[in-house]
C-alpha cells in the first residue's frame, strides 16, 4: 500500500506524473503501442487506426463538453470540414500530410469559432440545437458545393505522403495516427495545467461565477470551441487519409452522437475517460461482429439481427452508464487502481 500522498508545492500538485511507478507503466504502454503494428494482423491494425482517430476526436469533444460544459452536436460536421480540407488540398496542391493536417485543424477551428459565436447568448440545450443547426448547414454545403466538395459523390484522394514516402497501408497509417493521438492527448493534458484550462473548468462549473472572477466568457468559450474543433479537424483529416474517400454521408449526425456517447461512457471531464470511451465504443460493434460470425453456423439468421442489436446495445450503453455509472469507465478504472493501491485494505 502506498501512503504519503501529501503535496507540498503547486508544482507537485500539477505534475502529470505523481510517482515513478506511473512513469514505468506509461513507458510500458508506449512500448506496447510501438510494438503493436509488428505483432498484430491487418484487422487489428485497422482497428488500432480507427481507435486512434476516435481518441483524437473524443478528446476534442471532451475539452468542449466535458471540461467547458458546452454541449455540441456538431463534432461530425467539424470532422467533415477537416476531411474535406485535406481532400481538397491533397487533390489541388499536393502538400505533404503534416501541412494538410495542420490546415485541416485550423480550418475546422475557424468554423468552430463561427459556430461558437452564439454561445455567449445561447446556453445549455439551446446551444446544443445551435450546433445541430451548424451540422445541418455543413452537411448541406458538403452535398451542394460541387465544385469544391464533389457533391454527393464526394472526393477520393491520394495516400498521404512525406519526403517521398507514401502512407498507403494501414501499417504505415498507424505510425501517423497513433503518435499524433498520443501527442494530442498530451497537449490536452497540458492545457488543463494552464490558466486557459482552469478557465474552461471554471466556466463549466458556473459561468456567471467565472465571469465575476474575471474570466472573459466569450473569449474562453470561443477558445474552447476552436480547440475542440481543431482536434475534430485533425481527426477528420486522418479519417480522409485513412479511408481515402470523403462523402457527405461519411459524417452523419449519428457520428456526432457517437462521440458524445464516447465522452459520456468514458467519463465527462476526464481525458483518460475520453480515451477509454473512444476505444470502448469503437470496439463494441467489432466485438458484436465477431460474436455474430461465431453464432452464424448455429443460427443462420444471426447476421440479420446484428444491426438492430447494435442500435439497442449502443442506446443501452448510453442509458446504462448514465444511470448506473455516471462517471463512466474512468471511474471503474480508478476503482480498480484503488483496489491495488490500498491492498490489503479495502476502500
Amino acid at each position, binding site marked *: 500500500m502506498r501512503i504519503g500522498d501529501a503535496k507540498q508545492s503547486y508544482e507537485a500538485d500539477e505534475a502529470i506524473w505523481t510517482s515513478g511507478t506511473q512513469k514505468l507503466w506509461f513507458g510500458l504502454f508506449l512500448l506496447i503501442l510501438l510494438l503493436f503494428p509488428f505483432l498484430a494482423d491487418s484487422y487489428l491494425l485497422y482497428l488500432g487506426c480507427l481507435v486512434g482517430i476516435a481518441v483524437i476526436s473524443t478528446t476534442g469533444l471532451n475539452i468542449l*463538453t466535458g471540461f467547458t*460544459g458546452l*454541449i455540441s452536436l456538431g463534432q461530425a460536421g467539424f470532422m467533415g470540414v477537416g476531411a474535406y480540407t485535406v481532400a481538397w488540398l491533397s487533390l489541388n496542391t499536393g502538400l505533404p500530410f503534416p501541412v494538410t493536417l495542420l490546415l485541416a485543424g485550423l480550418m475546422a477551428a475557424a468554423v468552430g469559432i463561427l459556430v461558437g459565436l*452564439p454561445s455567449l*447568448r*445561447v*446556453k*445549455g*440545450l*439551446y446551444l*446544443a*440545437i*445551435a450546433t*445541430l*443547426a451548424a451540422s*445541418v*448547414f455543413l452537411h*448541406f454545403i458538403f*452535398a*451542394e458545393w460541387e465544385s469544391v466538395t464533389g457533391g454527393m459523390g464526394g472526393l477520393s484522394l491520394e495516400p498521404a505522403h512525406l519526403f517521398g514516402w507514401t502512407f498507403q497501408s494501414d501499417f504505415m497509417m498507424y505510425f501517423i495516427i497513433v503518435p499524433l493521438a498520443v501527442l494530442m492527448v498530451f497537449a490536452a493534458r497540458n492545457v488543463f495545467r494552464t490558466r486557459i484550462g482552469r478557465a474552461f473548468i471554471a466556466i463549466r462549473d*458556473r459561468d*456567471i*461565477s467565472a465571469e*465575476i472572477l474575471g474570466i472573459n466568457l466569450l473569449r474562453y468559450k470561443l477558445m474552447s470551441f476552436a480547440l475542440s474543433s481543431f482536434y475534430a479537424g485533425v481527426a477528420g483529416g486522418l479519417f480522409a487519409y485513412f479511408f481515402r474517400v470523403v462523402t457527405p454521408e461519411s459524417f452523419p449526425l449519428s457520428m456526432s*452522437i457517437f462521440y*458524445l*456517447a464516447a465522452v*459520456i461512457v468514458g467519463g*465527462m471531464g476526464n481525458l483518460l475517460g475520453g480515451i477509454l470511451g473512444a476505444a470502448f465504443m469503437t470496439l463494441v460493434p467489432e466485438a458484436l461482429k465477431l460474436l455474430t460470425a461465431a453464432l452464424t453456423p448455429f443460427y443462420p439468421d444471426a447476421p*440479420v*439481427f446484428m*444491426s*438492430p*442489436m*447494435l*442500435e*439497442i*446495445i*449502443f*442506446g*443501452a*450503453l*448510453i*442509458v446504462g452508464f*448514465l*444511470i448506473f455509472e*455516471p462517471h463512466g469507465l474512468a471511474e471503474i478504472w480508478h476503482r480498480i487502481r484503488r483496489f491495488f493501491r490500498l491492498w490489503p485494505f479495502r476502500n
Partner: protein
Amino acid sequence: MDWLFFGEISLAGLAMGGLYALIALGFVIIYKATRVINFAIGEIMMFAAYLFLAFAGGMELSAWIALPLAVIGGSLLGGVIEKTMIRPMLGESPISVVMVTIGIASILVGLVEFIWTANPQLLPSFLPREPVFIGPLYLAPKIAYGFLIGAALLIIYLLYFRFSRGGVALRATASDQAAAYSMGINVRRVFNMAWVFGSLAASLAGVLVAATGGLSPQFGIIGLSVLVVVIVGGLDSILGALIAGVFIGWLETVAGAYLGGEYRMPATFLVLAVILVIRPYGLFGTHEIERV
C-alpha cells in the same frame, strides 16, 4: 408565379404544420412539467406507427380499433420510459438527461428493426379517399383528414389543460415545483402523466404522418423538425409550439416544393439559427433569470 400552385402547396404545408404543432405540443408538455428535452419523441411516434401497422396490417383489426390501440401503446411506452429511465436521472445535469433520451431513441430504433425489419413499409390506408377541395385548391385527402384528427386532439388538449384538475396540477408543477408539492399535488404522478400525455399526442401524430408518407426505422428523423419547431416557439410555450409548428410545417413544404427536397432542412434550420441569435429563448419562451 403560379398562385394556384402556391396556394395548394401552402395548404398542404399548413396541414402538415398542424401535425407538427400537435407533436410540438407533446414535446412542450413533457418539457414544461419535467424540464426534460425529449430527443426520443420522433422514435416514440415511429413506435406507435409500427404498433398501428401490427394491429391493422398484421392482425387485420379495423383501423378505427387499431388507431386507439396504437396510440394507447405509444403513451404507455412514454409512461414506462419515464418510470424506468428518466426518473432515476432526476437532479442530474441537463446534458445527461438529454443523452438518456438519445440513448432511448437508439434503443427504440433497434427494437423496431428487430421486430419489423429495416425495410420501408406502407400503412394500410384508413382515411377517406375522395379529394378535398377548399375553394379552387386541391388538398390530398390523407393530409386533410390527418389534419382534422390532429386538430381535434389539439383542441381537446388545450381545453383539458385549461380547465381540468389534472391540467391545473400540470401547470402548477411547471411554474413552481416545490410550491405545487407543498400544496398536495402529487408531483411524481404529474411527471408520469406529462410523459403519457406527451407521448399520446406524439403517437397519434406519428400514425397520421406515417399514413401519408410511409414508415421506416429512419422515421424518427422527423424529431429534428419538431426540435426546430419547439426551439423557434420557445421550449416552454404552448402558444409558441402551435404558431411555430404551423409556420415551420408551411416553410418546410414550400421550400421543398420550390427549391428541392435537399433545401427543406437547411431552410428551417436557417430560421432556427436566426431566431436563436435574435431571441435565444424562442419567440414565446420564458427568459429565465439566472442567479448564482
